[in-house]
């Protein structure tokens, strides 16, 4: 047998195993299925220039995923024309005729190219046309937040103006807030009874404005307690809030002239777990029998557990939160409730510092602006419905709250 015939025989014998030993599928040549032809790559709007939006339709030979296609694979080439690598795979069986994907973590201003590979059931594939280069573009302003920017600027201007007016000696009327007036009474009661005051700064983190408002109140309350030479207990749930409360109370005692009365063990971290924290605070209420419980900050489901336990031990209770869902529980179980914005006004109200009172006034005036806008909006909508619209649509559009996500 001639050597060339031997080689041919061997190669024919090995042919059935060839597909098993070759890991790579073969590109159809010529393609029996039309490739993906409408690949669209565009910059993602309103971002830091780190993403591209990619979308494409099924191959015309793969109607609704019932064709011979198993999956579509998206390939990307990076800046400088690097080799194409697969970044995303789409199963052909998934619903819809259009696939979309956001390619994230790209480099702003750099060129990227893409193509889609269509994989068939027989292991072959067909590549679509390359699209690119396309570069993600960095944007410098959220155009959908223009309304918010104008409103914020107006609000800041109004608050700063009122602070300036207050500093210049303008008389400011601040309505009485019963819950805040009662704090003094509660602290005095504790001192007379020789009992500590329990201050719970809520269960949220330092990133929550309600917690910051609570810390501001704590500073004022701790100073009163220090000047009465009484005792304050502050159990903490958040490990970042804990050292801050410790510092606030220590500072208050120092400024009141009684640094030696400060007891570091009275301001302590309990646990990060919500209900374990509630159990521990309830335990403190029952064991220490505080004369007053001040529950000020952000609360969730544990609010009623705390407030009811506090009521059962006979303490005077003042609660304040901006969590609307918890307000009914506090109103029911506590002697005084500081509702919503009153929590943020508390520090200014108790401290009576002129600039802080000015900011409260600015806030009030802006609320008046909001009320006027709401009334205009309601009128425009109502008249728009009655008169079928057109003359008032521009008012509606102007007042429409736009999505600020992004």
């Amino acid at each position: 047998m001639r050597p060339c015939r031997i080689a041919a025989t061997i190669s024919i014998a090995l042919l059935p195993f060839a597909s098993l030993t070759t890991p790579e599928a073969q590109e159809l040549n010529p393609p029996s299925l039309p490739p993906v032809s409408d690949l669209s790559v565009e910059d993602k709007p309103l971002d830091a220039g780190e993403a591209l939006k990619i979308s494409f339709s099924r191959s015309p030979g793969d109607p609704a995923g019932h064709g011979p296609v198993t999956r579509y694979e998206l390939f990307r080439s990076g800046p400088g024309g690097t080799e194409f690598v697969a970044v995303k795979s789409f199963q052909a069986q998934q619903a819809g005729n259009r696939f979309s994907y956001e390619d994230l973590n790209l480099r702003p201003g750099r060129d990227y190219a893409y193509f889609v590979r269509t994989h068939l059931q027989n292991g072959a594939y067909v590549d679509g046309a390359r699209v690119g280069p396309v570069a993600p573009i960095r944007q410098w302003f959220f155009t959908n937040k223009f309304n918010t920017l104008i409103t914020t600027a107006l609000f800041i201007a109004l608050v700063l103006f009122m602070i300036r007016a207050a500093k210049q000696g303008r008389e400011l009327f601040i309505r009485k807030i019963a819950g805040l007036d009662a704090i003094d009474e509660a602290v005095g009661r504790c001192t007379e009874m020789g009992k500590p005051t329990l201050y719970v700064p809520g269960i949220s983190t330092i990133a929550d404005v309600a917690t910051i408002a609570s810390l501001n109140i704590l500073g004022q309350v701790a100073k009163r307690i220090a000047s009465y030479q009484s005792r304050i207990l502050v159990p903490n749930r958040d490990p970042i809030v804990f050292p801050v409360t410790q510092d606030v109370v220590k500072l208050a005692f120092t400024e009141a002239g009684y640094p030696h009365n400060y007891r570091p063990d009275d301001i302590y971290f309990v646990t990060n777990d919500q209900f374990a924290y509630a159990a521990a605070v309830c335990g403190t209420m029952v064991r220490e029998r505080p004369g007053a419980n001040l529950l000020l900050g952000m609360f969730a489901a544990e609010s009623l557990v705390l407030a009811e336990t506090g009521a059962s031990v006979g303490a005077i209770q003042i609660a304040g939160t901006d969590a609307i869902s918890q307000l009914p529980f506090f109103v029911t179980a506590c002697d005084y409730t500081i509702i919503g914005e009153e929590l943020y006004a508390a520090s200014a109200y108790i401290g009576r510092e002129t600039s802080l009172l000015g900011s409260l006034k600015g806030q009030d005036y802006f609320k008046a602006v909001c009320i006027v806008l709401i009334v205009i909006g309601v009128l425009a909508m109502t008249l728009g419905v009655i008169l079928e619209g057109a003359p008032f649509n521009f008012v509606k559009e102007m007042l429409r709250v736009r999505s600020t996500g992004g």
Partner: protein
Amino acid sequence: MRIQLPLLICAIVGIFMAVQYFVPALLPIYNRLNDYLQIVYAFSIVLGVASVLHRHGGKVQKRRKDWVYSLAAIAAMVLMMLAGFIEGRGSGTLFQNLFNAVLLPVQATMFALLAFYLASASFRAFRTRSTDATVLLVAAVIVMIGRLDDGRSLAIPDMARWILNTPNLVAKRAILIGVGLGMASTALKVVLGIERSYLGSGKE
């Protein structure tokens, strides 16, 4: 310096956070700062653990009242930590078993207490001592019956829906607007250093 430095840091970070809200290009820095917060948080856990050990350890050492409970608290904390460090937190580990068999039921028990507290709080709230309390009681009864099928013939579910979606929602939104303005005002005061109660009076 003790006051000025924190105020300066607060102002810089606060202004940056306000600006980044309007500038997409600053999002990566914002995300990076949030990552830093996680690191700070991890360190603060150490402070928390130290506080727990100091408080309960002192109680045990001086054999103060109820020191046994403090001992139990420290033992539980150390046991969980050791379980986590030695075996990890995967399925079937001691840590996971302790979590599932001890911590979760105890948490559920605390949560379940709410039902009883809710009953006693409702009883107090619905005592008709004044006109307000009467209105509250009537509204609550309508809403509660409105949740039941039996009230359908009397159109009570519709009345309940109206109470929830009209007067109730109006009040909630009014509070929300106030809360939003209060938040913005507080943030502004803290960032500009006008509100510094958390730093004391500001006297060096």
